């Protein structure tokens, strides 16, 4: 008998029962909600006459549609706190419903408020070996700590809240080895974009993807979150990384992490959470990172990505009809030509934020590029820290001064303009270089053209006024 994969260990630890129809009843250790879909789920529970089984294992935050302008608070938004038309109702419902059901809400004004996938690790709510679900597709971010964390729909959230379980058809397993050492100026964001560009946005085919290898071990815990964050853009059920000493050091002392004897007991258990040497996977693949360049997307799917020093590919060279037509539509939408150099394409805006790249290490990476430099004239540049804690920590070390001096706006935390919900957005057809995860049509505003990149590449582009390689500015 072969050994067990990390995923297999987590699956077995949470198996309540086999349901006899191919699905398994899996215990859910944490449910996280946000105002965009959480309120709907909680209200629907009432309508169906169900109750929340373990409110102490459930959490909620306000992130998706809250105003992120500086100084945002309850006084500036007596009705709720959203610039989205009708947005206040989502916030109000979430407040009412969480209060009534005894669920901890990280509200506006609470120093723990922020983007769900930034807040959950920061507070020690997600733990190695835990199952975590949230009605948000980027819940896979939290797999970076060795949790089985995945995004679900509203109906599934209702099920998890009411029963503390989900009925799940066991996904296939996949392991991606990132070999080699990352060159200077190249980041976890570039690793995941390179993988999706090579294997396609459908590449993981619904598998649980374990990220492993020398290059993953070398990443800090926050960078691992960036890697796992985009597992869903790879069509993974989720992504995860085996916990190691870096993970334990990251969690030690966090508000909801165990303490004292329980901490020691937990650490002993967590050290077992890795794939055995002879574990089998349905799919295994490798990617050598040692020659990677900073990545940029040129189209409207995360798979439409190339190195910053490369040219826009030619759809005519692609045999598959649907892929070719999607590329042609993407190029027309993005107003780019096959063979055109990406570097040098003028931009209207630069955005640093989102559950992908808004943590302290991301802001430090961008600040290293921005220090002593100015954003190009005519470029709207915005930095939205991922949580109030990140914002406060960045301010404590003076990063906000670097952003502000360079000409960036320095915002309150939230999902902000990662997506356009009808409130604030980038302008019609504007070209935005963005540290976010989705370059879909109109994602960041009406017909906006999004280029995904790392925070350093976004910062370098903001300074250049066009898509640009961050490495020269970093002295590489």
């Amino acid at each position, binding site marked *: 008998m072969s050994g067990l994969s990390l995923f297999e260990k987590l699956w077995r630890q949470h198996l309540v029962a086999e349901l006899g129809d191919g699905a398994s*009843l899996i215990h859910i250790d944490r449910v996280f909600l946000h105002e965009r879909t959480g309120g709907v789920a909680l209200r629907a529970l009432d309508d169906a006459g169900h109750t929340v089984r373990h409110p102490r294992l459930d959490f909620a935050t306000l992130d998706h549609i809250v105003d992120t302008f500086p100084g945002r608070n309850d006084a500036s938004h007596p009705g709720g706190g959203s610039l989205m038309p009708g947005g206040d109702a989502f916030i109000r419902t979430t407040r009412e419903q969480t209060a009534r059901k005894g669920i901890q809400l990280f509200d506006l004004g609470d120093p723990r408020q922020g983007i769900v996938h930034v807040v959950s690790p920061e507070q020690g709510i997600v733990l190695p070996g835990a199952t975590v679900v949230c009605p948000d597709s980027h819940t896979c971010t939290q797999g970076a700590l060795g949790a089985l964390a995945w995004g679900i729909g509203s109906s599934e959230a209702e099920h998890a809240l009411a029963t503390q379980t989900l009925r799940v058809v066991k996904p296939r397993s996949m392991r991606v080895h990132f070999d080699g050492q990352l060159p200077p100026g190249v980041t976890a964001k570039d690793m995941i974009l390179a993988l999706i560009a090579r294997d396609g946005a459908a590449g993981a085919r619904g598998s649980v993807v374990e990220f492993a290898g020398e290059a993953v071990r070398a990443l800090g815990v926050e960078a691992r979150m960036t890697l796992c964050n985009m597992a*869903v853009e790879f069509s993974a059920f989720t992504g995860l990384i085996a916990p190691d000493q870096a993970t334990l050091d990251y969690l030690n002392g966090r508000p909801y992490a165990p303490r004292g004897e329980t901490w020691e007991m937990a650490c002993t258990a967590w050290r077992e959470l890795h794939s055995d040497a002879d574990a089998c996977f349905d799919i295994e693949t490798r990617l050598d990172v040692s020659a990677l360049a900073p990545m940029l997307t040129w189209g409207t799917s995360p798979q439409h990505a190339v190195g910053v020093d490369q040219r826009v590919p030619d759809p005519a060279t692609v045999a598959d009809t*649907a892929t070719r037509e999607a590329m042609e539509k993407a190029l027309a939408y993005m107003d780019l030509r096959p063979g055109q150099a990406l570097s040098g394409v003028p931009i209207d805006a630069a955005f640093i934020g989102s559950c992908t790249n808004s943590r302290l290490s991301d802001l430090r990476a961008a600040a290293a590029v921005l220090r002593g430099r100015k954003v190009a004239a005519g470029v709207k540049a915005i930095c939205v820290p991922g949580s109030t804690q990140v914002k406060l920590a960045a301010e404590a070390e003076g990063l906000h001064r670097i952003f502000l001096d360079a000409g960036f706006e320095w915002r309150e935390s939230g999902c902000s303009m990662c997506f356009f919900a009808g409130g604030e957005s980038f302008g019609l057809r504007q070209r935005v270089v963005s540290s976010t995860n989705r370059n879909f049509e*109109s994602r960041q505003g009406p017909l906006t053209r999004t280029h995904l990149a790392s925070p350093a590449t976004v910062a370098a582009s903001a300074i250049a006024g066009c898509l640009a390689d961050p490495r020269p500015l970093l002295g590489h």
Partner: protein
Amino acid sequence: MYKFVIHEGVAAPLLRSNVDTDAIIPSREMKTVGKTGLADGLFAGWRYLDAATRTPDPEFVLNRPEQQGTTILLSGMNFGCGSSREHAVWALKEYGIRVVVAPSFGAIFAGNCVRNGLLPLVLPEAQVAELAATVAADPQRRRLTVDLQRCQLDDGCGRSYAFTLPASQREMLLQGLDPIALTLQSAPLIDAFQAADRQARPWIWLD
């Protein structure tokens, strides 16, 4: 809750890969705290020349006269990727779509479909293209029939296509089961699991 046994209807080709849930229902079209009022926002970025005034784009497939009453979508791989928003399924359903045929689906989207009585039907890309070619000549007459009991799609021109669906999802759709009610029947198993888990992993239990 929501049953699906057999369905006959007009099929429309939307043969693009990676049709994401932002395209199916843009965030700005999710205006109220509820599961209804979403059909107007379906494919809003593609369906209207001007979304604000709801001026239809005559070129968009669902707006063509021959596609009136479409209930089956034919699409490319990775349909429904992206955001977990169940609103994408609620919008499709409210519009009248009952089946989406594609080479693969976003995992969360496929789960959301089953919860709402929509069938995410997987066929190889070549077969989806063949179906699109079949219906193209006259979508109103060349209706497709999807039979979940037999796991078979008939194109009305003598060709049939076998498909598979995980047994649990097939049962859920065929019988229109309420998953929460079903799971609550297993409450003693959940109780037992949790009692043991409190001993094994006390750090999980925050009380």
